[in-house]
């Protein structure tokens, strides 16, 4: 029996100019909150949060965006080497980040500032990385949030291996079980490592959730250059469930991730979540998106802004008042000020620290290079390696 293609081949040969990426995700999209902030229901997913929790989610969205805006400004002022903005992806990140339970472990790429926030990583640590003062600097074990991983896709295997370890530890099969969650992008879906992670996770039935933020772009490359069918369908080829969620809907992102993580911890194995969202800013502060995408696309997506719809929802539900927003603005200002101050005051690392953590115990070669360089720095010409 021939298996029909799940989608027809692309009408145009793929080498023709790509059209603007899709702003509509199709009927398979899980949504609990419309762009207008209307609560809608879904047969398979729901959230039942307290008023405080709804407010807290919105607060996260606002604060995370504020961190992002401040970091972008600091980069413009020369304080950071580069910054990868999460603008537009706040809901996908906060929704999934808050869906994690304390015992879960996240494996981010380089743009998961919102997830970092949910895991209690000080935003200054993130800035330290983009400033070039460190490669992260938080303790992954303590935060249960791995260091940022820049080589596209490689962290998906780390997450899978970690999840295999959860199984070996017997920490799976109940509501107290643990799970791992791997973040990656639409572009990353093409990497061999990501697909190997799918193989391993399915074969070992590992408790890992693959959370793909399809923000429509991998730098200048639209998603239709990475796949000709919706990305959540990739999971079909490996025999585990895939789901497409509205990544600009914090409630749906929360609900879908919560379910996938709970399934994983209960022994149901992996799920692929495609969070359909949009990178509203440049790829990084070094990028110039006007070279490759239309302003109209951004305009269309602005109507789906993840903060706006949650704000409307809170209003409509009468969960907030002017005081709430006043306090939140003040908190955001304070946070931004703290970040700015911390960044400006951030010391450069000690040059000699370069030699210290290459190995668990320093090697003779590095000891010699360290000593020579120390002597060199203090103006005494050392012997040996120059």
């Amino acid at each position, binding site marked *: 029996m021939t298996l029909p293609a799940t989608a027809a081949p692309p009408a145009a040969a793929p080498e023709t100019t790509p059209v603007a990426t899709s702003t509509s995700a199709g009927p398979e999209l899980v949504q609990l909150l419309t762009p207008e902030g209307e609560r809608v229901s879904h047969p398979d997913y729901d959230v039942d949060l307290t008023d405080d929790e709804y407010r807290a989610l919105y607060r996260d969205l606002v604060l995370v965006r504020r961190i992002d805006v401040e970091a972008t400004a600091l980069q413009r002022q020369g304080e950071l080497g*580069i910054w990868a903005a999460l603008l537009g992806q706040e809901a996908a990140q906060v929704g999934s980040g808050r869906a994690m339970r304390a015992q879960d472990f996240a494996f981010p790429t380089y743009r998961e500032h919102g997830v970092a926030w949910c895991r209690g990583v000080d935003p200054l640590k993130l800035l330290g990385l983009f*400033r070039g003062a460190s*490669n992260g600097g938080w303790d992954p074990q303590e935060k249960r949030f791995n260091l940022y991983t820049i*080589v596209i896709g490689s962290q998906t295997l780390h997450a899978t291996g970690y999840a295999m370890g959860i199984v070996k530890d017997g920490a799976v099969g109940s509501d107290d079980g643990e799970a791992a969650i791997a973040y990656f992008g639409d572009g990353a879906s093409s990497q061999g490592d990501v697909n190997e992670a799918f193989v391993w996770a399915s074969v070992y039935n590992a408790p890992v959730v693959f959370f793909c933020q399809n923000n429509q772009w991998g730098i200048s490359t639209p998603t239709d*250059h990475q796949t000709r069918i919706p990305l959540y369908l990739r999971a079909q080829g490996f025999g585990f469930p895939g789901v497409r969620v509205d990544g600009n809907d914090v409630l749906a992102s929360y609900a879908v991730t919560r379910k996938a993580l709970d399934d994983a911890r209960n022994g149901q194995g992996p799920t692929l979540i495609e969070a359909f969202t949009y990178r509203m800013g440049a790829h990084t502060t070094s*990028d110039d998106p006007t070279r490759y995408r239309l302003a109209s696309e951004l305009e269309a997506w602005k109507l789906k802004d993840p903060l706006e719809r949650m704000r409307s929802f809170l209003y409509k539900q009468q969960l907030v008042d002017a005081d709430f927003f006043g306090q939140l603005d003040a908190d955001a200002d304070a946070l931004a000020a703290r970040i700015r101050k911390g960044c400006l005051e951030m010391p450069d*690392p000690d040059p000699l620290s*370069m030699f210290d953590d290459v190995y668990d115990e320093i090697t003779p070669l590095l000891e010699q290079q360290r000593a020579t360089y120390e002597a060199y720095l203090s103006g005494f010409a050392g012997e040996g390696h120059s």
Partner: protein
Amino acid sequence: MTSLTIAKALNEGLRAAMERDPKVLLMGEDIGKLGGVFRVTDGLQKDFGEDRVFDTPLAESGIIGTAIGLALRGYRPVCEIQFDGFIYPAYDQIVSQLAKIHARSKGSVKMPVTIRVPFGGGIGAVEHHSESPEAYFAHTAGLKVVACSNPLDAHFMIQQAIASDDPVMFFEPKRRYWEKAEVDVTASPGPLWQARVVREGTDATLIAYGPMVRTCLDAATAAEQDGRSLEVVDLRSLSPLDYPTVFASVRRTRRAVVVHEAPSFVGMGAEIAARLSEELYYEMEAPVLRVTGFDTPYPPSRLEEDFLPDLDRVLHAVDRSMGY
């Protein structure tokens, strides 16, 4: 003569190669509309079409693996690897496939694939964006490895690499992309595999390639003030390595310092030092010294000036060499 940056000289070189041979293809991540993150392919997709200049899926093994297939079909693919640190997913396709196919087929299959790699540090980037992986490829039989250091070479070397029927790893000194020089695009370049004495001197030879050539030239200029005359050899080709030119220089100066950004241990400098020590055993006045990045991962960029060889460290090594 036009004044060109290295990036622009490469761009013009690519253009010339594409005009000359319709089989030349450019492929890589974001090289089309964006023109690559360094704009080296700027405008080429517009002018040559999406059939000849195309954005690939985000997968380096896929880039090199399909380039091999395209070469088998008669094309001459020029692959861009976005940054040095992202070449490793393609490592198997490069060292086990691309490098060996000519030998495996006893010469019946040519592999005219060029792999462009912006390499080296000094741009304040985050991890994996400042690596110098050239030694890995130089150690691999079947690959040719070159590095340009200036706009003129950039312009011609890229064309020569593309014209080569062997696979060529083409390293571009990313922090020098915006340095300018006059380029006579009508000149006829010498062989791709030849090193060049880029500054003459008598007291010691500085041996470098890629971004460190500029550093060595600056060091030589500075040394002049102290009455020291340094010769600078730009290797240009790392594999094959033009030992005759290097030997000739060091025979004259009797002292040599090799400079590169990559770590020293089992690096290019080791090879050059080993070979010079053997071949010029009776002719040198001092051991070959190495000035290199430290044997650590490339550090966070706030420390890169400490990590990278600079004028002072080069001169310091020259002092040491003169001390023998």
